[in-house]
C-alpha cells in the first residue's frame, strides 16, 4: 500500500532508515527534543580531521524526523563538517519532496541536533 500524506522519498527513508544506532567511537553526540510535539532525536558523529567520517542516529519521532535524519546521515558522510550550513528546509524538500506545513519543525530539529553533535566533537575527544 502507498500513503499520499508524504512523498515517496520521505516514506522510503522512513521505511528503511539508514545508519540507525549508536556510534561507540563517536567524536560528538547530541540529543534534542522538540518541546511542542515531543519528538526526540540523537546524533552520533565521527570525524576524520575536518571531514565527517560517519553519522548515526536514534529517534523517537514522526515520519519527517526519522526520514530527514536518515537522509542526513548519508548526505553528510565524506563532507566537511562546515557543509552542514547547506542543510535547510529547501535542501530537504529538494531532496525528498515537500513537507506538510505543520511538519516543518522536523527539519529544524534535525539541523539543530546535528549542529549540536558537531559542536560537541571538539569538546569530547575519544
Amino acid at each position, binding site marked *: 500500500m502507498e500513503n499520499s500524506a508524504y512523498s515517496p522519498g520521505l*516514506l522510503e527513508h522512513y521505511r528503511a532508515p539508514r545508519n*540507525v544506532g549508536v556510534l561507540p567511537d563517536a567524536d560528538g553526540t547530541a*540529543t534534542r527534543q522538540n518541546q511542542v510535539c515531543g519528538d526526540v532525536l540523537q546524533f552520533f558523529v565521527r570525524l576524520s580531521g575536518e571531514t565527517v567520517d560517519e553519522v548515526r542516529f536514534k529517534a*523517537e519521532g514522526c515520519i519527517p524526523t526519522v526520514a530527514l535524519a536518515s537522509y542526513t546521515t548519508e548526505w553528510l558522510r565524506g563532507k566537511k563538517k562546515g557543509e552542514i550550513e547547506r542543510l535547510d528546509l529547501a535542501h530537504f524538500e529538494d531532496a525528498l519532496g515537500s513537507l506538510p506545513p*505543520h511538519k516543518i519543525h522536523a527539519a529544524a530539529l534535525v539541523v539543530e541536533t546535528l549542529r549540536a553533535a558537531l559542536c560537541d566533537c571538539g569538546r569530547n575527544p575519544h
Partner: protein
Amino acid sequence: MNPVYLDNSASTPVDPQVVEAMLPYFTEIYGNASSIHTYGQRARAAAEEARGQIARLVGAGAKEVVFTSGGTESDNTALRGVAYQQRDRGNHIITSQIEHPAVLSTCKALELEGFEVTYLPVEPSGLLDLDRLRAAITPRTTLISIMHVNNEIGTIQPLAEICDLAHGQKILVHSDCVQSLGKIPIDLGSLPLDLASFSGHKLHGPKGIGALFVRKNVRLRPFMLGGSHERKRRAGTENVPGIVGFGKAAELAGRHLDEMATRVRGMRDRLETALLQISGTIRNGDEKQRVPNISNLSFEHTEGEGLLISLDLEGIAVSTGAACSSGSLEPSHVLVALGRDKRDVHGSLRFSFSRMNTENDLQRVLEVLPTIVQRMRSMSPSFSA
C-alpha cells in the same frame, strides 16, 4: 492483502442498504420538501419517515428530532441556542475538558461574548467527578454540556446522574451523543436529557447529515436563520437524501445493537488483551465504562504518527492522539486531561471497530503491529530492552 479499517469513530462505510435507500431522492424524488406539489410532498413524507426512524432508535418523539448538517452544527445549535435563549436567567455554562472541539470551540466563542464557562477536569479514567460538577454549579448556570461517549477513549459519562443534579436546579443538559448513537442503547424516554447531538456518518450513514434532539417544551434560539424549516428550529432546505440515509442507518443500527455488545465487543477485547501483552503498553480510559467498539492504547517509546503510517502502509487504518498528526502541533487534549505523561500521548493509537469488521481484521493487526512497535523502539534513544 485485504485492507483493514479500524477508524470507525472517525467515519464509517455507508451501508449498501443505506445507499440504496438514498438513491431515488437524488434522481426521482428530488422535490423541495417544503413544496406542496407531489414532488415536494413525496420528499416530505420520506423525511418524516426518517425522522421517525431516528426517534425510535433513541426513544424520542419524532417532533423532538431536528435535522442539521452534522454533529458539529448540532453542538453549535444546542450551546448557542440555550445560551442566548436563557441569557436573562444566567450566563454560566459547564462542560468538560475532554469534549469534542465542536463544543469546546463554541464555548470559547461564547466566552468572548461575555458568557462564563467552567471546563471540568476528569478523573484519570476519563470519567467525570460528580462532586466537582455539583461544586461548579452556580445560581447563574443555565446549561451543562457533557458528551455521552468520548470519541478518543470511549468512556461513557454518567448522564442520568448529571441530569438529576442539573434538573434539581432547573439547569438544562445537553450531550454530544455522536459516539454513542448506534453503539449502545439510548433511551431518551428514561434518560431525561434536554438536548442531544447526533451524526449520520458515525453509524454507516452518509456524511453531511445530523440531528439535534430538542425535548418538547425546551426552547432555544435558532442558530441557522432563514426559512421556517424544521419547525422554525433550523432554517435551510432539508437534505432529503441525507435524511433518508440517516434514517435507514438508524433503523439498521437499532437491529445491530446486540451485535455491538457481543461480537464487536469480543473483537475489541481480544485485540486489546493481545496488544496489552506487549510490554510497556497501557490502556487509556476506563476499562468497564466504555462503548464496545473503542480501544485506546499507548505504546511506550514509540510515536503515534509513525505507528499510524506504518500500519497504513500495511493496509490498516487507525488514528492517533500524538501531536502533529492531524495538522495540529498539540497532542490529544483528551489524553492530556487524563493526566497521561506526554510520552504516553506521543505513542497512542485508537482502534475503533464497527459491525463491518471481522476476526481477520484484528488478526491482521496482531500480525504486524508488534513488529512495528519493536522496530520503533529499537530506534528510540530512550528505550532499553
